[in-house]
Structures are given as C-alpha cells and as structure tokens.
C-alpha cells in the first residue's frame, strides 16, 4: 500500500502543529520521522492513523482518501506500536495479542476461531513471545512488553505499521532487538513501516528514508545520508555534528561535537603536531577554549586529518601514504611561525613523519613554547628505532614542557606555554 500525504496541516485550536506536509511512502518502505521535541512527529503519526481528524484528501492510501474508510477498515490498514503500554488490569500476553484480532471479527457476538488463534500464535512465534504467552502482561519486562505489542500489531495483519518511538524505554540490547525485528518484518512481509525515532543513529541504520520535521514543517526528506548532513542538522537541531560512516554497515552515523561551554575566540594561535588520532581531543579542547588551532603535517587519510577537517582547522596536508615532502614541511613551519605555541601529541613516529619532531625542534629554536603531551601509562610508538624517543628527550632538555593530560595542557598554555 502506498501512503501519500498531501499538504497535511493540523491545528490544536489556534496553534498550528503541522503545516503543508507532503510526501509519499512506497509499499514496503521504511520511513523514519525525525525532528526535535515539539516538531510534530507524534501528531503526524496520529493524523496518519486518523486518531486526529484531518481534512479530506490529506492522507491517501493508494490514492484513496483515509476519510472514506470506516473505523474498522482503518484498524485493518494500520497497526500502531506505542512507546509503551501498561494497564492496572489483569491480561495475559496472549490476551493482549488476541486484541489485535478485534478489527477482524465479523460481529460483536462472534467468538475467537481456530484461525484467529493460529494468527496470534504465529505472531507470537515470530516475535519470540510465545513462550511467555500465559504470563501477565504487567509483569513482563519493558523489552518483552514491547515485543508483545509488536505481536499484537502483527496479529492485526496490517498493511502499514506505525511506531511511536518504539525503543525509547529500552536498553541498548532491547533497542536493537526490537528494531531488527521490525526491519525483518518489513523485508520479509513487505509491511510498510512509518516510525517516529529520536535516536539519529538508530534511524540512519534502519530507515530507507528519513523525513525531518521542524516546527511542524517538513524540513528535509531523503536517504539517511542525504538528510543527516551537518548543515541540515545544525539548522534543525541547532547543534554541530560530525557525520561518519559505520565501518561495518556503511550506515551513516552522527556525532555531536558542540561544546556547551565553548569560549569566544581570543585570537591566540596554537599549532598541533599530531597523527593517528592523537590530535582529535587536543584540537577539539583547544578550539573550545578559544584558541585558533592549526595542525600538521598530516596525510590526507589520517584520522587526525579528518578530525581537523570536521573542526574546520587549517592543516599542512600531505598526499596519502607519502612521507612529508619538503613543500609540506615548509607549509607546516609557516603555520608554526604564525602560532605562539606548539603542541606535540603522542603520535606514532615513523620515517614518513619524523619531520614533525624536527619541526618542533626548530620551533624551540625560534623561541616558541613547545608542549609535549604524554599519554598516560603508554609509551610513544616508535617505528624509527628509538630516534623519536631520543628527539623528544632532546626537546625536553632544551626547554620543552611536559604535560600529562589535556587539562594540564590547557593550564600550561594559559601560562604562555613555558616552564
């Protein structure tokens, strides 16, 4: 069944909750509704299931208006899995799932038949809930209860499954369990899924399409990779994020990196000599403390190069896997010249990047503050037969300051970077 929204608007009294939302969900699609709190996600879901009445022709099922269906027909089309469900009354898990058959009974007097029992049993087997069918619903754990609610939705034999933050009260294991199950049903049975999701990364991993709402408007719609872009997220959620790809699933994932207490830039410059990911936390901390940071010399595929890019930090960059060339070294030195101090992170040293330590040495020579950041409890990785260690020792004997940890580094820098 193809679900289409056409200029869907909804108001509670005078306040407009949803404005002119239009999109299509193809049969068998898996769409995630996302957006900040109060953006209208749950209201939109309620309009789709007609719990809230919208205008004619705003919600179409295979081109047919939702308004033309009876209550029971709507219930046979959509099954809803709520955030959670609880009751003070005594029902077994089986009773709850059997309720999914309510829209399918012929009359108010008809009893459950063999085939209803079979549908319920099948739904409970698929959700792995059959083994506690006789237990009381209120005594089940959050994850078990959520699976029972999914089983009820399946027993409804709907064409479209609507989920309202189905994993919000679950632990991480429960979240994946429930989302894997929903994805499996989506793939195997071709059930269309519309899910309100809060967790960006869960949405990116499971949805084909993400619709991003903001203040009741459709801000963006498309594949997770299209919608979950830093600039879109910045404009909707107001936070800075980094978007990466999960190395195993290739799903995009989003890392927030806005510091709540980021200081205003004060113009003091620091250059970071880093590599292999050792520079990421340093560059981030220094930026948050208001320093103008530069970095070098880094190969383009180095993770610190990616970190610097994400933080919009200028880098003296070398081609992938190439040793630092004369040209890049000069660029590195130029950046050092513009800085008051140089930080040397505990990056692994090999023949290709030994020049970074030489750069530190010449910085000392031109009376810049040099700070050697030591990683706690581990030695610098040295691929040049002890030469790196010797050079660092040399730097320290000539006045470079040893600091352990980023907090100490920031304190030392605020004193001017000298001992």
């Amino acid at each position, binding site marked *: 069944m193809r679900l289409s929204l056409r200029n869907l608007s909804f108001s509670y009294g005078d306040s407009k909750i949803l404005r002119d939302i239009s999109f299509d969900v193809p049969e068998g699609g898996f769409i995630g509704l996302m957006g900040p709190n109060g953006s209208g996600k749950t209201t939109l879901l*309620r309009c789709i*299931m*007609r*719990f809230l009445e919208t205008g004619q022709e705003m919600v179409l099922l295979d081109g047919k208006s939702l308004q033309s269906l009876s*209550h*029971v027909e*709507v*219930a*046979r089309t*959509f*099954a*809803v899995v*709520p955030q959670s*469900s609880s*009751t*003070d*009354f*005594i*029902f077994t898990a*089986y*009773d*709850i799932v059997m*309720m*999914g058959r*309510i*829209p399918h*009974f012929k009359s*108010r*007097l008809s*009893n*459950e038949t063999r085939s209803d*029992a079979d549908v319920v*049993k099948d739904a409970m087997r698929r959700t792995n809930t*059959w*083994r506690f*069918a*006789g237990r*009381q619903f*209120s*005594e089940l754990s959050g994850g078990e209860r959520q699976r029972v609610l999914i089983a009820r939705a399946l027993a*409804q034999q709907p064409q479209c499954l609507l989920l309202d933050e189905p994993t919000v009260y679950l632990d991480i294991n429960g979240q994946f369990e429930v989302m894997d199950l929903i994805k499996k049903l989506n793939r195997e049975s071709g059930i269309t899924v519309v899910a309100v999701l809060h967790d960006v990364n869960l949405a990116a991993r499971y949805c084909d399409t993400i619709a991003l709402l903001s203040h009741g408007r459709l801000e963006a719609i498309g594949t997770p990779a299209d919608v979950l872009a830093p600039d879109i997220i910045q404009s909707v959620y107001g936070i800075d994020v980094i978007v990466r790809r999960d190395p195993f699933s290739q799903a995009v994932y989003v890392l927030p990196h806005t510091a709540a207490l980021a200081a205003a830039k004060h113009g003091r410059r620091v250059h970071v000599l880093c590599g292999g990911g050792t520079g990421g936390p340093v560059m981030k901390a220094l930026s948050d403390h208001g320093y103008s940071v530069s970095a070098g010399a880094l190969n383009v595929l180095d993770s610190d190069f990616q970190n610097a890019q994400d933080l919009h930090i200028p880098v003296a960059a070398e081609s992938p896997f190439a040793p630092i060339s004369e040209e890049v070294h000069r660029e590195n030195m130029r950046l050092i010249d513009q800085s008051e101090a140089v930080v040397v992170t505990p990056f692994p040293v090999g023949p290709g990047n030994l020049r970074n330590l030489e750069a530190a040495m010449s910085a000392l020579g031109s009376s810049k503050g040099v700070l050697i950041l030591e990683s706690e409890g581990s030695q610098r990785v040295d691929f040049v037969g002890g030469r790196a260690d010797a050079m660092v020792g040399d730097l320290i004997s000539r006045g470079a300051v040893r600091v352990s940890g980023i907090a100490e580094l920031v304190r030392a820098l605020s004193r001017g970077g000298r001992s």
Partner: protein
Amino acid sequence: MAEDQESDLVSVSRRRYFVLLVLAAALIGSALVAMLIGTLGPIGPGEPERIGFGDAVNIIFRQFEDVPSYHVDIFWEVRIPRVILAGLVGAALACAGTAMQAVFRNPMADPYIVGVSSGASLGAVTAGLFGITTVLGVFITPLFAFVTALLTVFAVYALGTVKGRVYVDTLLLSGVAVAAFLGAIVSFLIYFARQEYHRIIFWLLGSLSLQSWDAVIVVLVAVAFGSIIVYLYGRDLNALLLGEETAHNLGADPEFLKTLMLVVAAVMTSAAVAFTGVIGFVGLIVPHMVRLVVGADHRTLVPAATLTGAIFLIWADAIARTALAPTELPVGIITALCGGPFFLYLLRRGRTKGVIS
C-alpha cells in the same frame, strides 16, 4: 510445554461458559431461597404465625388452592417483587460499575462517580421536603430522583467534555466537585426537613422497602438494555483499558464508546437509585471481586459481574430484612458492612501479589 499452554488457552472459553452457568444457577437458587426468608415465611423470624414450607413453595409456583389470599399477597405483592428488585438493582449497579471502571481505566471507579447518587439524593430530598408522594398515581420520589440524577450526569459530562472529546480525568474531578456541591445542598435541605428526616435518611442509606411491580418493570427494562449493550461492547472495553489511542487503533471509536457507556451506566444506575436510594459498594466491589476470579476480559466479566451483583444484593437485602426483625435495616448499611472489610482484604491480598486489581 507449548502444547499444554495451547490447550489451556483453548479451554478458556469453555471455562467462561461454565462460570456463567454456575452463576446463573446460583442466582435462581438464591432468589428462591430469599423469597422463603422473612416475616411469616418458612425461614426466619415467623412467630407467632408462619407459612409452611410446602405452602410457600406452592404459592411461589402459583398453586393457590387451600391458601389464604393474604398469604398469596405477602408473596406476590411484597416478597417476590422485592427479591426480584433486589436482584435487578444489584445487577444494574454491578454492570454500571464494570462499565465505569473500564471508561475510567481505574478499578476504583464506581457507578456513582459521575454524580448519579448526589443528583438522585437531591431529587428525592426535594420531593420529601414538599411532602408530595404521588401525583396521578406515579411515585413522585423515584421520578424526581431519576430526573435529577440524569440531569446531574449530563452536567458532569458537559463539564468533562471539551470540543466533543471526553477527558476522563476532568470528568472524574467534575464528578467529585458536583457531588460535593449537591451534597451540601442535600445536607442543607435535610436540616430543615425535620418531619421527613427519618424517611429521607432511610432513603439516602438505600433500602428496597419501596418495592413494587412497577419498579421491577422499570429497572428490568434498564438492566436488560444496559447489560446487553455493555456486553456487546466488551471487546472494545478491553481495548479501552490499554488507552484511547490503542482502542482507536483496534477499530473502536473511543469518544463514542465513552459516551455510550456513560449514558448506559447513568440510566441503569439512575433507575436503580430512584427506587432504592443510594446503595453503596455493590458497583465498586462486585466487578472487582469477579475480575479476580474470571480475569479482566469484559466478555466474561460483564455477564459474570451482572449475575454476581444480583446474587449479592438479594442476600444483602435478605439480611437487612431479618437481622433485627421486625425492624428493617437500610440495605446500604449491610452492603457497606460486608463490602468494606472484604474490599480491604482483596486490596491487601492484591498488593502482596504485586497486582492492583
């Protein structure tokens, strides 16, 4: 193990019919026995005169040869309509209580929660105050009570409804507020109704002494329609217990369902209360008690609670008539005396098992 479970689940519906059959038999038995109990009856305080057991049974089954006609009247004008009325009123209150507990999704709700009792009291006390008892042969107290009860429910319903949507929390609080307000007026009126004082208090505590075949017919119609409607919507009520959104999604119309249940419960309760006064605890405790035995599925619960309510009130009235004979106690005192402690017992037992209902 899974196969055992399956056969258990299949036998649920068989067990349901068994429970209902037992209750129906118990109701008929209780009614027959209760008809034999009482002044002049073969059981109970019959001195100095007593109708023999055989004669009594003959009269009940309408074999009137060789029996004095006033014996027939005692049964057919007094005792039999009274026992039937007790059963019908008990059924009405228990069925209405079940419906209200589902609408409010709260096992502590009762049929009076939307103001029926306070509304009916005001009507009855007003009628009592002006000393009018009959007009054109119609009992005026029940008529007043019935009309004011329905008006009160309508007011509470209007207060709890915003733009066609019934908000149960608002409804609940409106019910409490309106009941308190009307209660104050009733107290005020009672204070000035010195001569009628005893009669009014007796009515307020609930009694079946105003029995008549007219009352039986009125309450019978209300209970028959009411309980059948509540039963037919049993599956929807089950869904409503999980929330309005869930009920909607399972094909019920929650707004229609709530309104229908409120109307049906109000009519049943008002009809009962109009003739008998405010009989407490039946509508609260019977659905509760029955739910512990048969579970929360309304397709079993509604008929089971309705039958149990009838049995319960027939016995409570039998005790009220005979405990301090020849003085008659208000039946509301008996229901509260039995119901209160039993309710507390159930509550504590449920708590220790970690279940509220």
